[in-house]
């Protein structure tokens, strides 16, 4: 669990977290405790969305084995409690299979997928890169 006091990624379509430039955001959804029930369900649903599968078919591994969701809930509820409470922001990120998942204390859940390895770099000179135009 990595908490950061950094709110730079709190913007709506902010860049991937530092050090993860090779990740592309594929899902962003806000956890609404009243609607979704627990945070576990919201995270699993977001990951399922990223893979275009139904949430109940996402089985392995159980999220419990990957991240302490109850701990996140407790920590972020504390941050959000009471208007007079010190307002802090933070986020937690973790890997789930091929995804990178970020949960913010603002209850935004973002799922990133790795940007595929680029096509073999054209080591050739621009003059020989004629096929590039045709491919796009």
């Amino acid at each position, binding site marked *: 669990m990595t908490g950061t006091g950094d709110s730079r990624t709190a913007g709506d379509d902010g860049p991937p977290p530092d050090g993860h430039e090779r990740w592309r955001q594929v899902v962003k959804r806000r956890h609404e405790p009243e609607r*979704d*029930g*627990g945070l*576990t*369900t919201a995270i*699993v*649903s977001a990951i399922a969305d990223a893979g275009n599968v*139904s*949430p*109940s078919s996402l*089985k*392995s*591994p*159980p*999220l*419990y*084995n990957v991240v302490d*969701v*109850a701990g996140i809930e407790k920590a972020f509820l504390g941050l959000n409690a009471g208007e007079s409470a010190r307002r802090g922001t933070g986020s937690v990120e973790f890997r789930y299979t091929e995804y990178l998942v970020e949960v913010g204390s603002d209850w935004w859940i973002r799922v990133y997928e790795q940007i595929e390895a680029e096509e073999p770099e054209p080591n050739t000179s621009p003059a020989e890169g004629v096929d590039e135009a045709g491919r796009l």
Partner: protein
Amino acid sequence: MTDEVEVGFENPVTEVRSPPQVLESDHVYEVLSHARRRYLCYSLLGDAEWTLTDLATKIAGWENDIPERAVTEHQREQVYIALYHAHVPKLVEQNVVAFDDASETVTPAENADQVLTALEGMGSALDSAQGTHARGSRDDGDR
């Protein structure tokens, strides 16, 4: 229970699981600190084997105050996910239940008695309505 049935919930990070032993009371209360886990444990008092789908249906009925047959697919799925990804693994880790991945059934494990005893003790004061509901027969389903 063989180790095999629990393999899906093995935590890759903390491979070492403490041997079956008496749970400290802190753990008992942690296990019982969530309404859905209490409900699951109450259900085991009534019937020693549950499929996850049946449990999810029953809990969704309880939470929404509707009969099981009125539970929607979405309501069931919401609870199912929480059971599968959070509550059951926690109970497996504490050796309170065993989970069979293939059949997705939950059965009591070594520490179940201890937890169920504690639950019965607090039942009348805290959760009697929930306990009564959980232990009620599966009357309105033909599953």
